[in-house]
């Protein structure tokens, strides 16, 4: 190691203004020159509301939950994979843990046994969170709507922002759905909850009807349960 001052390093690390000046031409104010400046005119400041800014950020960088249920998940994988490449739209980072995700794509049929699990996964996601329902199954139960075990749409369990119809929807359709979601997020819109979703509740809190009486010695009071009232389903 020599004791020479590291002049060379300073030089290389300094901003190389030569090329920039050449590109800009003469007589321009080099501090604030940018595309944005062109867009906003003479004032070097952008005025925006903080929440609008946040909405823009949210919509432009979405972390999706890696969540596969049924047939639609195959087309969902194709949407992430080569050729369709959802990442082009700032939404292609699948996270394995719900705690790191802000969007959940629900790709398939939800059955009674899976309902409580899906609710749990959704609850684990941090706010704000968004849901894309993929396929007819998440709209109404799809081809399995009349099944004894099938939940008649994802909205019976969690609120859904965007429905992508199809059985299965093509990858292009899912890309469109995600793009639409981004648009809504940027505009700060959120979906109204139209049906009262099934909740996870403590078994002890259920009204003591005949069914609950029957199960009383098999389920603990504190256990979380989901009660399906099939007769009330659409």
């Amino acid at each position: 190691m020599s004791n020479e001052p590291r002049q060379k390093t300073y030089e290389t690390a300094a901003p190389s203004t030569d090329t920039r000046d050449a590109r800009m031409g003469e007589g321009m104010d080099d501090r604030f020159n940018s595309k944005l400046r062109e867009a906003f005119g003479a004032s070097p400041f952008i005025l925006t509301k903080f929440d609008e800014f946040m909405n823009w950020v949210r919509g432009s960088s979405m972390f999706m939950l890696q969540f596969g249920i049924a047939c639609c998940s195959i087309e969902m994988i194709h949407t992430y994979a080569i050729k369709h490449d959802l990442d082009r739209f700032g939404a292609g980072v699948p996270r394995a843990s719900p705690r790191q995700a802000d969007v959940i794509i629900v790709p398939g049929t939800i059955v009674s046994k899976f309902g409580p699990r899906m609710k749990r996964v959704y609850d684990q996601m941090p706010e704000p969170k968004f849901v894309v329902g993929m396929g007819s199954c998440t709209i109404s139960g799809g081809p399995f709507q009349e099944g004894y075990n099938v939940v008649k749409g994802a909205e019976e369990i969690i609120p859904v922002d965007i429905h992508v119809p199809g059985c299965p929807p093509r990858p292009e359709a899912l890309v469109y759905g995600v793009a639409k979601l981004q648009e809504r997020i940027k505009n700060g819109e959120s979906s109204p909850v139209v049906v009262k979703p099934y909740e996870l509740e403590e078994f002890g809190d259920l009204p003591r009807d005949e069914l609950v009486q029957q199960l009383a010695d098999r389920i603990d009071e504190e256990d979380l349960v989901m009660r399906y009232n099939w007769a009330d389903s659409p």
Partner: protein
Amino acid sequence: MSTGLENGLEVSEDDLETLIGDRALDREDHVNAPGFVVRPDQVQEVLTDLRDEAGFDHLSCLTAQQYENRYESIYHLKKYADPTQEVSVVVPTAVDEPVSQSAAPVFRTADWHEREAYDLVGIEYDDHPDLRRILLPDTWQGHPLSLEYDQEQPQVVTLSEHENPVQPDHHDTESDTMFLNIGPHHPATHGVLHVKAVLDGETVVDVDPDIGYLHRCEEQMCQSGTYRHQIMPYPDRWDYVSAGLLNEWAYARAAEDLADIEVPEYAQVIRTMSAELCRIAAHMLALGTFALDVFGDFTAVFQYAFRDREVVQDILEDLTGQRLMFNYFRLGGVAWDLPEPREEFFEKTREFLDDLPAKAEEYHNLITANEIFQVRCVDTGILEPEVAKQYGCTGPVARGSGVDYDLRRDDPYGYYPELEWNVVTEDGMDNYSRVLVRMQEVKESAKIIEQCIDVLEEWPEDDREIQANVPRTLKPDADTEVYRAVEAAKGELGIYMRADGTDTPARFKIRSPCFHNLSTLAEMAQGEYIPDLIASLGSLDIVLGEVDR
């Protein structure tokens, strides 16, 4: 005692009658096989005799159903050496006390089957090691495929914590066991499977696959659809990784036998070609996800596999109009002829086939020649052939254990007998062999497709009959029963149907290869390390849509 019959030699009906003797209360023949009615307390005896004396070593399926006046369990037996030899053992039980002897001590695979029969139909099996619900939640009320079930009744489903099942009798001062839930939402389970594992350090002590998170009532749906048009869309959704046409063929074959329909040869060629395209797509997915499981390769191998799937899906879309849920087969043929201009279609398909050898080479370099991959797969997840047979394994899983069994050759259908191709087997019995089998099967499928294209190109234009003349409303005769299987992507996919004279089946039962293959997981994983459990699960290549139906 050995009679030399276990080698697959022909057993005549008379031999069977003598063997079963007066334990047979009655005969009840099915379209595919002779059927013997036996008493509910003689099931084990009869099945043991059929297995040991007559060589019926493959319990292909168990169908349970309820009639007005009785419950019935049907054991569909076959031989691994010759699956065209079949026999059905019919066990009726009383309505007020549906209890029948369990077959689980004779065939291990009966364990899961009988749990399913108990769960959905409500028959109880005496002497069963662990009779509890398998598909529906434990707290479910009623048995949905029984006649008096009320679908409107409310149900309560729990989200319970799981206890360590071996804790009470596993008190080791040196070590401690740990309970680990894998799934139902987990990237390595290929869908919504829940594996309850107990670990001692890193070693797996106990595994219990908990299924039913995708039980979407496929059998009920098929029972309420009409034969001619309404059932065909559902098979696409059993094994949904683009294997749709293979599944449709299972239904088509069973229904065509039931209603006695001849399929024109031209349609058979198209069926054979398109089904093998599906097999390639399905095996590609298996390969890509397996690479993802064992060495976390989301970049190269996974994306390459999906690139190739896109090509296959394009071809299939040209042919059927859909990328995944084809709904292309019809009873008696296929929906429409090849797309025009035919030359373009042939050219596109040939191009894909021509590229395939180079791609296969690439996969070999990337996957099977990869050192990490070999360390993870060679000699892990051992499945002995005898064990595989006990569990009713078929398809690449069985062939990776050296069981030379492929229905396309052994129980021929379609256009396969006219073509040149080989059944691939490997003797390694491990995760590595199962992958090798799939990779080689892709090449065999390519051979089949190539020959089919040759045949189709030569086919005279005025003789292109794509569908037989099938009545608009199909009502097979009452009380005809059939059980038929085809070689799907994952193995033997069988359908049992009973007609009752109407235009919908009275009972529709699906024999899923994945259901059987998955049941071996405990055998393969116990005593191995937890990462090997994940590799074994991946190498079984299950699709939950088909496991849970």
